[in-house]
């Protein structure tokens, strides 16, 4: 009887964290903050549910413990992979907009000294205009998650 009460309490604990995680996924303003909310569902929420299930169904405790350990190990890895993909996509978008600015600014006839220094700091400035356009196209293609086609390469 006491075991049932404790088990149902653990189930309610897990349900509370599941509800809070889903609420955070809906309401949070940013991708990374939403990831923070949904990480709680996998660790606290699901682990509470598994502890409650192990208390209510003691014959299956080994399988439930296995499932709990597996989820506890793999769900932070999955969350980290999604966060890394968010970060990578932001990096690609920022570099595309920066290189588009560089490609669109007018070429100066007589570069001043500090202007030349500023451009020498930038690796992309040594490339020609068409090469920069190529890079922009390739990264826009990467943003659209398509594989770069090997046949349509212009310069060998």
């Amino acid at each position: 009887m006491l075991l049932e009460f404790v088990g149902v309490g653990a189930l309610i604990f897990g349900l509370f964290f599941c509800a809070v995680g889903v609420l955070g996924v809906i309401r949070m303003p940013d991708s990374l903050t939403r990831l923070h909310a949904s990480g709680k569902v996998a660790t606290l929420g699901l682990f509470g549910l598994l502890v409650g299930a192990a208390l209510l169904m003691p014959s299956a405790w080994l399988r439930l413990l296995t499932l709990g350990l597996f989820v506890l190990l793999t769900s932070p890895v999955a969350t980290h992979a999604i966060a890394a993909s968010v970060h990578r996509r932001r990096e690609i978008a920022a570099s595309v907009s920066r290189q588009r600015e560089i490609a669109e600014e007018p070429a100066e006839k007589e570069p001043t000294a500090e202007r030349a220094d500023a451009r020498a700091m930038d690796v992309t400035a040594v490339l020609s205009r068409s090469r920069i356009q190529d890079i922009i196209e390739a990264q826009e293609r990467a943003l659209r998650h398509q594989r770069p086609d090997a046949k349509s390469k212009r310069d060998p």
Partner: protein
Amino acid sequence: MTISENGWRGLKAYWDMFESDFAQTAIQLILLALVSLLIPASYRVIVGPTLPDRLQAVDLITTLLIGIIVMLALVEGTENFVDMAIALAAFAFVGTISIARYISEGRVF
């Protein structure tokens, strides 16, 4: 079977009924709540502004499904459903990792 009929024994019978049904009722209510949590989670899959948001919401739905399968094992009293939950967790991990790599790098391998 009321108190007026059976005295305090009737109350004891009510308490026994509650005691035997309490855990099962609570499990079924929690299962219902978990299933209803799937609807707001799928909102983020449909609306989510970028692709990682949708992937993250699908991952969240899979986690909720693992919990639902475990609660279903409790309701039915079938231990073998937990094995299904383990398999779902393994495949969801591999799928999430590979899709996350695909949408950031443009390829999986």
